[in-house]
């Protein structure tokens, strides 16, 4: 049944090393490529995919949910920079402030893309953990405080 029967934990590891959409994109993960070659007959692939579906579904759902949250963070920062301002008068401080506002706007998108691209082989919990940490750090407080008051 299992593509690798090395240990009881190998099933989890295999699932962790797969990512929903890999098949659609035709990509083969470098870490799993060799194992797939070593694995038994092609008919096993279908069973493997079926067994992995719940995990992949949860992973896809979490990735999609956080996409919406991070979109909200980006919108929140776009609104936030409308109400924050610098009292600085010299050019350098103004440019630095504008740059800071700009990167704050794109912080949500950057964090999301970084987690998306850098955790393809990680467990779902690890990916969700990084997504959640980003949401906590990047909350657009300027606009939230205005809305709350």
């Amino acid at each position, binding site marked *: 049944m299992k593509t690798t029967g090395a240990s009881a934990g190998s099933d989890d590891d295999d699932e962790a090393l797969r990512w929903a959409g890999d098949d659609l994109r035709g990509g083969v993960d470098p870490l799993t490529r060799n194992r797939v070659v070593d694995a038994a007959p092609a008919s096993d692939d279908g069973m493997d995919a079926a067994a992995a579906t719940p995990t992949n579904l949860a992973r896809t759902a979490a990735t999609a949910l956080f996409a919406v949250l991070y979109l909200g963070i980006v919108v929140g*920062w776009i609104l*936030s*920079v409308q109400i*924050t301002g610098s009292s600085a008068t010299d050019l350098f401080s103004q440019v*630095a402030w504008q*740059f*800071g*506002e700009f*990167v*704050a706007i*794109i*912080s949500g998108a*950057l*964090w999301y*893309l*970084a987690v998306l*691209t*850098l955790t393809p082989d990680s467990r779902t919990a690890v990916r969700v953990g990084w997504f959640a940490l*980003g949401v906590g*750090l*990047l*909350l*657009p*407080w*300027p606009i939230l*405080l205005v809305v709350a*008051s």
Partner: protein
Amino acid sequence: MSTGVVSTGVASRVVVWVVFALLYAYPLFEGISNLIALPPYYAANGIGAAVPWWLLIIGVAAPVLLYLAALWLGRGRELFPRTLILAVGLAATNALVLSAVSWASAVQPAIR
């Protein structure tokens, strides 16, 4: 041949580290300047007890900690992921600093 490739890799890594160090330095400079200037300003206005120390500390600590964290997370990776992680940390630093500033305004008592 191979040493040339390796040293090119090291050189581009160092360039990325230095460029991002400069970009992280500005929020750090702002944080330090707030830490130095805000308490006397509050004291002069009779609200010296209300200095938001935790926000001032975030302003100084966030650039340093996020830069170090980005370096640590990037170790052993290719140049692009390293750079991406440093960029994410820089963006998060600036977002945190803006949040801290807005919190400081929100919790500042009225000055009579």
